[in-house]
């Protein structure tokens, strides 16, 4: 039975991956990636990583992909003609090298002498992959990684806010925009978006 589920999940993952890459509309790409992530969660379950599967669905699919959908809706992103600014050669070359990389990795995996790979894995104990166990490890053996990850999340949040800030939301933009302070005057007739990076146009393009 496990094999059946494995193949279903694997096919789902691969289909999702191919869809992400091949679909023209970025919206569809995001949805395809969602499908891929869900299949991956299934694979995690098959590997007895229960907590991780749940985290994958809740965090990755539920938060990150939803954020993606919002941004894609805002930015739009038209049809992406496959005409590469480089050359068609680039497409074939990249396919070739990606394929070559896959072949190498497969050889590495399948030809390995490590015995554990040829089986289902070493023995597992009760509580393997449960939230309790993961939580215990996070707070004892991997405390540093845990704390570092939380700081990273804080920084990323602050950074994202600053990056995507709108000028209209500030009472006195001049205070903050240093680049603008260096360039006195002629700000009122500014068409916006022509000055330094910290001066955003007022919202979406109006003209």
């Amino acid at each position: 039975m496990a094999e059946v589920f494995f193949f279903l999940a694997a096919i789902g993952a691969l289909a999702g991956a191919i869809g992400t890459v091949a679909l023209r509309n970025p919206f569809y790409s995001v949805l395809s990636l969602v499908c891929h992530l869900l299949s991956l969660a299934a694979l995690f379950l098959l590997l007895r990583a229960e907590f991780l599967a749940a985290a994958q669905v809740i965090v990755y699919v539920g938060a990150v992909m939803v954020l993606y959908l919002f941004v894609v809706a805002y930015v739009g992103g038209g049809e992406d003609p496959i005409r590469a600014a480089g050359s068609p050669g680039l497409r074939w070359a990249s396919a070739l090298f990606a394929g070559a990389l896959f072949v190498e990795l497969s050889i590495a995996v399948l030809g390995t002498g490590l015995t554990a790979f040829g089986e289902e894995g070493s023995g597992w104990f009760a509580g393997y992959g449960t939230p309790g166990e993961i939580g215990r490890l996070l707070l004892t053996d991997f405390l540093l990684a845990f704390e570092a990850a939380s700081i990273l999340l804080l920084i990323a949040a602050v950074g994202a806010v600053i990056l995507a800030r709108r000028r209209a939301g500030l009472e006195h933009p001049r205070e903050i925009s240093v680049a603008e302070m260096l360039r006195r005057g002629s700000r009122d007739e500014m068409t916006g978006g022509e000055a330094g990076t910290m001066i955003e146009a007022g919202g979406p393009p109006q003209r």
Partner: protein
Amino acid sequence: MSLQTYGWLVLLFPLGGTVLIALTWSVLPWKLHGYLGTLAIFLSFLCAVGALFELQDRGEEERQVVTVAWDYANTVGVDAQLSLLLDPLSVFMALVVSGISTLIHLYSVSYMASDRGYTRFFAYLNYFVFSMLLLVLAGNFFFLIVGWAFVGAASYLLISFWYRRTTATAAGIKAFVINVVGDVGLVLGTYFIFKRTGSLDFLRAFEGVQEFSRNEGDLVAGCLLLLVGAFAKSAQVPLHTWLPDAMEGPTPVSALIHAATMVTAGVYLIARMHPFFEQAPAAADVGAILGCATLLIAASIGLVVTDLKRVIAYSTMSQIGYMVMGVCSAAYAAGLFHLMTHAFFKALLFMAAGSVIAAMAGEQNLDRMGGFRRAMPFTFGCMVIGGLALAGVPPFAGFFSKDEILSLVIAREDWHVVLGVLGFVGSLLTAIYTWRMIFRAFFNEPVEQAHELEHGHLYHAPEHTNPATGEVEDTDVGFPGPDHHIAEREWSMKVAMALLAVGAVFAGVLQIPKVTDVLHTFLEPSFHDSRYYESLEPSDGLTWIGLAVGALLALSGIALAYRLWVQDRARPGAIRARLAAVHGFLVRKWYFDELIDAVVVRPFAWFGRFARDVFERVVVNGIVVGGPTGAVRAGSAAVRAVQSGFLRYYAALLLVGVTGLGLYFLIAAS
């Protein structure tokens, strides 16, 4: 003091003089510099006299002394030392050079008095005397070449003394370039000799002359190259074209450098190198033939030129032809004797000419001169004495010296007899052109300048001009000064000219044939290794015939000149009209200038243009420089293309790199 000390002092006084004058040019009053310069050379002359006495005190065998000051380099078989060779020949030359130089310095004290460059003049003159003494006293080839080059530089500096005159600077460059050709010949000749003898020192090299077989190719080549050097310095055909142009320098310069001393350096060189020339008679014969040719060519041109100083210049060229012919035919003492007497009367002639030119306010053309006999008696007297000596009238000095050369040359027998006979023809021509000059300048009706001078008033030209081209000049530094000084009014000029006149009259006493043999005996230790010095002697009959013919030719030359330029004044014009082609040929100086221009100057100029337009532009800039720069530019352009800014290219490079690494590890692990 010892001989060696005297020898070094002879050199050091002029050197000290020039340095002192140069360093105090603005500190001391200018008149003092003239006296300083003269004093320095006079002291040098005294030391030369002292050296002479010291030398004669020694025994006959010990009269060749080498004194070394410093071992400059002694590696790879080259022994270059600062050494002097003090022997009769060098002391003789030092006496002549320093003696004549003292008198010319004295003359210049008044002659150049109004020139703004007075101090510079004396500094240069002292430097020249130092270089010339270095040349004659040098004890090895190295020092000789150094002196040779210094003398060339001094000549250039002094010819272009009035440096704002373009004719003067052009003449200076011409002289220098031809001298450099001679320098190259000298150095190459030295190389040929040094290669075999293994030493740069004169005495050691002379001992090594036996390494060469008689007339061996290497030695003949070396001697011919030395002849190139000698001929360039002594203005012999074909390297003679610079000497007439060198008359652009002030008259004392012409007197000192281009009559008495520098141009005799070639004669000294051949005399000094006599062991090599005797071992390679082919080269010596070439030298004798060219010397004879020069004396005839120069004498013929002297018959037609109209510039006073240039007549005397061609006369110098001709007389040095005699000297060269003499030393190349192994008549060493005779040639050097003529060198000494020639120094006296030629310097005297130049000084007198300078006085006449001053009376003419800078005009040098014989066509405009005349009748200065009553206005300038002293100058006239000196000119007559010099002219008689030059023409070879007994008992003046030139008579004995010139005839000794000719009789010794004829005594060589075989084909040298022809050279001797041609030499006699040349002496007839010498008398004619010398007295042509004197009669035209001093006889007949006085010109305006002479008239004014008779009334005690020195002529002043309305404006100062270049005597050759007529361009107007000012009298600031770089051009001649405003005043002119004649001998009758300046005591220093009178003293100098009087002393030279005495020498011109009485110097012949040293070598009266069959009576006195002073110079020949004195110089004998220097030529002890010559196979001709003692043996070559004319028979009694030849000697008397030679003296008689010489005197006869001189007197008939003077008579002919008197007839043509005093009595029958229209004859020269008629002769010229009849022989117009010949006259034209002579006036164009036998077309030597045009020949050298076509054969040497134009090919070199073409080569220079070729080097600039083709070689420099195409090869050097295009290939040698352009090649690597082009390659570097292309390479960097290729590398620059990688920095395209395309994100996907970078990602592709990453992927390719990872794949490659993986492949490597796969292979390494298997």
